[in-house]
């Protein structure tokens, strides 16, 4: 499989605190990869650094063969990476639909509005209300939905199931599978291990700002012991 995203020797800092200590990882075209790890090991930071939000960084990030280290933040999306942050980032002053329409379309391959509303009927119903008047779960849906419109090639999701009802988690799982069928590449951070095991092709296990293990979904059963020890699942 052709690698779409290649990260090597990535280090990152928040001011004086050194958070990533040489992250190496690869995400293949069309693959769905999940990063697992305890609270605070640096999962979110990894995603934010790849996006270019955290800019105190060293190492190498190649996206589709292109060096991303010097690309300014507002060009990252145009290169084809879309981001759903952990805190969702719904805009209060915009209506649901304006939120949905906000991110500029970067390629013609995105979903249409109808398709999106079909996936997330809640959003259709609350279309004209201000974004943050949605419940936590609805906000999460909106955050994913709006990226689907833009036609990015790599979707970066930070804990998409946090705070969601089981039915919705299921629905999101289905959405992700559907996206995969369409050839979308997904990089996911998850605490919800059961959910992750249902959708991912491959896992990275993260500890102390580094990737400590990397295995495909098939090896899951024999890895359970280790995961148990590291994650407590």
């Amino acid at each position, binding site marked *: 499989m052709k690698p779409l995203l290649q990260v090597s020797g990535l280090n990152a800092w928040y001011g004086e605190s050194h958070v990533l200590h040489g992250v190496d990882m690869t995400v293949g075209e069309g693959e769905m990869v999940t990063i697992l790890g305890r*609270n605070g090991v640096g999962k979110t930071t990894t995603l934010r650094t790849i996006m270019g939000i955290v800019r105190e960084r060293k190492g190498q990030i190649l996206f589709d063969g292109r060096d991303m280290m010097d690309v300014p933040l507002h060009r990252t999306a145009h290169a084809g990476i879309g981001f759903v942050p952990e805190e969702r980032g719904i805009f209060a002053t915009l209506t649901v639909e304006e939120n949905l329409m906000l991110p500029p379309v970067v390629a013609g391959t995105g979903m249409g509005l109808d398709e999106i509303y079909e996936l997330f009927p809640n959003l259709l119903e609350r279309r004209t209300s201000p974004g943050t008047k949605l419940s936590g779960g609805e906000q999460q849906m909106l955050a994913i939905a709006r990226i689907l419109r833009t036609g990015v090639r790599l979707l970066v999701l930070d804990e998409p199931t946090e705070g969601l009802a*089981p039915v919705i988690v299921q629905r999101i799982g289905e959405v992700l599978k559907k996206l995969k069928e369409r050839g979308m590449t997904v990089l996911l951070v998850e605490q919800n291990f*059961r*959910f992750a095991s249902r959708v991912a092709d491959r896992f990275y296990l993260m500890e102390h700002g580094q990737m400590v293990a990397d295995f495909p979904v098939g090896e899951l059963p024999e890895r359970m012991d280790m995961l148990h020890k590291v*994650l407590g699942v």
Partner: protein
Amino acid sequence: MAINAVQTHEEPRVVLSARGLTKVFGAFAAVKDVDLDVHHARVHALIGPNGAGKTTVFNLLTKFLQPSAGTINLLGTDITNTAPDKVARMGLVRSFQISAVFPHLTVLDNVRVALQRPNNLATQFWLPMSSLDRLNQRAEELLAAVGLADARNTVAADLSYGRKRVLEIATTLALDPKVLLLDEPMAGMGQEDISTVSGIIRNVAKERAVLMVEHNLSVVADICHHVTVLQRGEILAEGDYATVSQDPRVRTAYMGTEEA
């Protein structure tokens, strides 16, 4: 008053009750005609799909929002029109969905701030800070109870997420509330923290009422005596976890086909 009159010796008494609770935002009814009774020495779960109105119910009960209709009764007093800080002083204390500590204070100070008010040490601007030292003993007991004794002098911002939530529970307990409202206390927690916090909640509920919103159904199954399922602002089902989780309507509306 009428509500209190019905209590019997067998059944734990009702400490917080709402009748016909309704909240309308513009044309949208987020909470519709909800009746709720929260009992002493019981853990009561409020579950439901996202956007069902759980947080809104919390906001209404704690008076952070004013209900559009309905009444709320706390320990025999009607609090439908009472200010939120007053409600807190009457013994109804909440936690927030997003963690709420005082980030730049030490863990000990976080708890002491909560202890100041019940100990009448909050408005004295002429006393030295050391006058607060007499709160230390109680504060340390509370920290020990939730397993934060070792972090006594750590600045709260430096705590891990899970331990912040635990600290928040400790400060809440400092007020010695009669009723505790917890909004998704386990959200974002790793498994090991979840067990700790479950244990703490179970302990706490021995002598007070707890109402909590939670999506982690294993926790609900584990520690909650009573479950209310909310959907689209209305009560869909009520009962103990076993009953509720078998209800087909609950399964389709909330749990899905398999347990998470």
